[in-house]
């Protein structure tokens, strides 16, 4: 009997994922309403639950894909995978207005360059504090502070060792998760309540998953604006870090 249920759930992985995530969302919104009177947004709690599930999955399987490494929950991997995620992010642009996008043009681009540059510099400075002196390692770690894609892409391009690449991924992941958690907390202080600021925020932070989740937990209407600039950030990072920023690092160290 148990086996039959398990098989039924596993054979319909994506549908199982819809059901499980639906239940998680319900519990999260219930807790948001009853425990915090809506002050902590339900989606923020749901994302935290997601991260906790990922941790449980990782500890139990030793795998890299959180809860989706457990066979029963493999459909969550499909549901939260790149294809459906991008499809849904793009769909959120449906509510965006073009005039707002145009208005933010210049400051959005400024934010993009600033975001990549300062993240890289902070990554390098912290790596220096922890005793790294090799320009390849410094650049890779700096790239990780940009995003967990820029780190490994740059590291591979300039020939970094795999432990440094893993470290750069870890930094990028922590960045992404901190953005998810801290955005609703900082939102009021930085006036994150309009498309303009959302686009600047997306350009400064850059990590698409973090920005999109952070905005979802703050105000769903802002997601398209932040996500739009954030998706250009990784590209800019992949362009600048292994080239200009690596050369600069090599000259200085």
């Amino acid at each position: 009997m148990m086996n039959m249920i398990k098989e039924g759930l596993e054979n319909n992985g994506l549908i199982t994922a819809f059901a499980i995530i639906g239940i998680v969302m319900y519990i999260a919104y219930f807790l948001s309403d009853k425990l915090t009177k809506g002050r902590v947004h339900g989606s923020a709690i749901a994302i935290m639950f997601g991260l906790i599930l990922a941790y449980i999955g990782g500890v139990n399987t030793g795998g890299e894909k959180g809860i989706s490494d457990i066979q029963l929950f493999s459909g969550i991997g499909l549901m939260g995978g790149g294809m459906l995620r991008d499809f849904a992010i793009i769909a959120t642009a449906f509510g965006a207005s073009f005039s707002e996008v145009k208005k933010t043009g210049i400051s959005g681009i400024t934010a993009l360059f600033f975001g990549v540059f300062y993240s890289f510099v902070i990554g390098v400075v912290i790596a220096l504090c922890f005793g790294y002196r090799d320009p390849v390692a410094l650049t890779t770690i700096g790239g990780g502070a940009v995003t967990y894609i820029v780190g490994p892409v740059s590291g591979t391009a300039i020939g970094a060792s795999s432990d440094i690449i893993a470290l750069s991924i870890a930094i990028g992941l922590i960045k992404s998760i901190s953005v998810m958690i801290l955005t609703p907390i900082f939102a009021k202080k930085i006036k994150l309540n309009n498309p303009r600021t959302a686009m600047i925020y997306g350009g400064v932070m850059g990590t698409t998953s973090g920005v999109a989740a952070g905005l979802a937990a703050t105000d769903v209407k802002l997601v398209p604006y932040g996500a739009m600039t954030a998706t250009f950030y990784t590209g800019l990072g992949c362009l600048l870090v292994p080239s200009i920023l690596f050369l600069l690092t090599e000259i200085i160290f």
Partner: protein
Amino acid sequence: MIIFGVALLSICMLIGVIVGDALGGLMGVEANVGGVGVSMLLLVLAVDYLKKKNKLQVKSEEGIAFWGGIYIPIVVAMSAQQNVVAALDGGGMALLAGVVVVVVGFLSIPFISRIGEKAKVNEQEIELSILPKEQIK
């Protein structure tokens, strides 16, 4: 029909992703560069255009709105499959670097926001005083 909206969304995504891959190829990076951003811009433009021409039916809009609405659950599923263990195992340095970068980012946003606003005002001034409107993009 709902499928028209879904198809419009799909076409925008496919074009964006192909453009993003091509950009990545041009840059010599094995990544999609800004594909999602391009797709979003295309969708905004397409919806804008179709609405002006009165060619977008409510039913078609629902096909796009549904996927926008399912977005948060997808983000929850996405966070459930992050390598959280590795992120925490990466040691104190990863934690420090990741958090410091984000906090500094938040602190700098109000300043960048201000710089941008100034630029915007200047642009309007120029627009009013010197250049004919068509020349400003």
